[in-house]
């Protein structure tokens, strides 16, 4: 009779085979899942990089269906929806994420931040404000939430709250926000000036100078306040200080500065200042100002001579137009007709030109804005230097 333990080697062999079969099957199963996931992920990424957002959304939606626990995929999808302008879908997705009971606290706050951005994009500023305020109170993603809050208050033109939150952001991150805060004070000063509260306007300007001592806008507003009060000598000083603070704003500052020079009868000082400016500034505005000054003081011939000499050094369409205007009176007949055509042409050329450009986002504007209408950054819109511009 065969002893029972003779079967042990067979049982051990069966054990080994069973163990190996199970491992092989599970490895195949997980490998297939990972391959499918990662190939989908990379396909989605590829669509994103090729700016094919529709296809990317399709792939990511399938990924999210495949693994409902993947919060990152949901967040990426929400972002994509928002960027495509499908804000309602982004809001639904983020709301669904936030309402998940098993979500960890950090992930939940990320979803809340995203939801706040969705609300902002949808124009539901009150809801966005409440969400961001909650995040700041929770001290979760506080710098981002504060930045969004500041953007909301700027949009609502609630400058006092914008200043308060900018200061909080400054203490939280250690980054210098004083140029932006100075702009907020300038907005307050401008509003007070328009309402006739001149003392209040001066107080706000003082605060602006405390934030940024070389704030061009504050200097320009100071000059304007002085000029409106009839204190043209002080206005001249303020405008000159504005040019000293940032020479790029010469085209903006020169017209009121020349007016104050004229009102305070300081035309010699004006000439000296403009002559000095010609050395430092390579635009056409000081040349045109000096031409007008020479025209009034010394006559047309001297003015045209000066302008012609300067145009050789700094060719400019605006300068050419001024030259045509100045010489028009002395020309008659067919040449006059030709000059008229030339003048119309240059005028049309200038009409279509953007005179200012945002140094941050490249937004082109015909008029000057202190805050870029496109990227919302402050003091980045500057005059364009070129033949057809400044």
């Amino acid at each position: 009779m065969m002893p029972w333990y003779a079967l042990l080697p067979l049982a051990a062999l069966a054990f080994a085979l069973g163990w190996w079969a199970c491992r092989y099957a599970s490895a195949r199963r997980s490998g297939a899942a990972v391959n499918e996931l990662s190939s989908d992920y990379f396909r989605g990424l590829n669509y994103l990089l090729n700016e094919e957002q529709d296809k990317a959304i399709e792939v990511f939606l399938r990924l999210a269906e495949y693994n409902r626990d993947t919060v990152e995929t949901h967040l990426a999808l929400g972002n994509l929806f928002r960027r495509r302008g499908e804000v309602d879908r982004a809001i639904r997705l983020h709301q669904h994420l936030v309402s998940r009971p098993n979500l960890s606290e950090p992930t939940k706050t990320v979803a809340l931040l995203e939801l706040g951005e969705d609300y902002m994009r949808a124009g539901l500023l009150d809801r966005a404000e409440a969400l961001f305020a909650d995040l700041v109170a929770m001290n979760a993603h506080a710098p981002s939430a504060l930045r969004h809050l500041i953007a909301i208050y700027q949009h609502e033109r609630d400058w006092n709250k914008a200043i308060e939150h900018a200061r909080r952001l400054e203490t939280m991150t250690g980054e210098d926000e004083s140029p932006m805060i100075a702009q907020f004070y300038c907005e307050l000063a401008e509003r007070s000036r328009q309402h006739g509260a001149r003392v209040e306007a001066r107080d706000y300007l003082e605060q602006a100078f405390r934030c940024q001592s070389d704030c061009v806008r504050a200097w320009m507003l100071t000059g304007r306040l002085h000029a409106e009060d009839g204190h043209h000598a002080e206005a001249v000083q303020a405008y000159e200080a504005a040019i000293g603070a940032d020479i790029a704003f010469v085209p903006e500052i020169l017209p009121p500065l020349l007016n104050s020079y004229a009102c305070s009868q300081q035309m010699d000082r004006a000439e000296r200042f403009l002559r000095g400016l010609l050395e430092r500034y390579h635009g056409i505005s000081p040349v045109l100002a000096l031409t007008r000054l020479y025209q009034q003081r010394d006559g047309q011939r001297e003015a045209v001579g000066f302008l012609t000499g300067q145009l050789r050094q700094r060719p400019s369409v605006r300068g050419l137009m001024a030259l045509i205007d100045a010489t028009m009176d002395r020309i008659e007949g067919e040449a006059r007709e030709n000059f008229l055509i030339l003048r119309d042409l240059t005028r049309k050329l200038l009409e279509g030109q953007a005179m200012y450009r945002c140094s941050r986002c490249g937004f082109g504007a015909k008029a000057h804005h202190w805050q870029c209408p496109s990227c919302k950054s402050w003091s980045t819109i500057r005059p364009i230097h070129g033949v057809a511009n400044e």
Partner: protein
Amino acid sequence: MRLIVIFVLVFFAAAGLVVGALNAGLVDYDFAFAQVQLPKGAALLAALVLGWLLGGLTAWLGVSLRHRRRKKEAGKKQVHA
């Protein structure tokens, strides 16, 4: 393909029947509290099936425990991130 599988299954069933018929003798088992006698073929089959099942179970437990541990570690990392 299906035909091949059926053929292989029939072959193994026939082989099992033949081996079972040729090994009709009994094997003695003494479990201290009880003594059992089983046919040789049945004992062989039982040893193979039990070995296979135990091997599979061990491997499955090892894999699933490792997966659970990794998932827990990933959750902790997400909280700290």
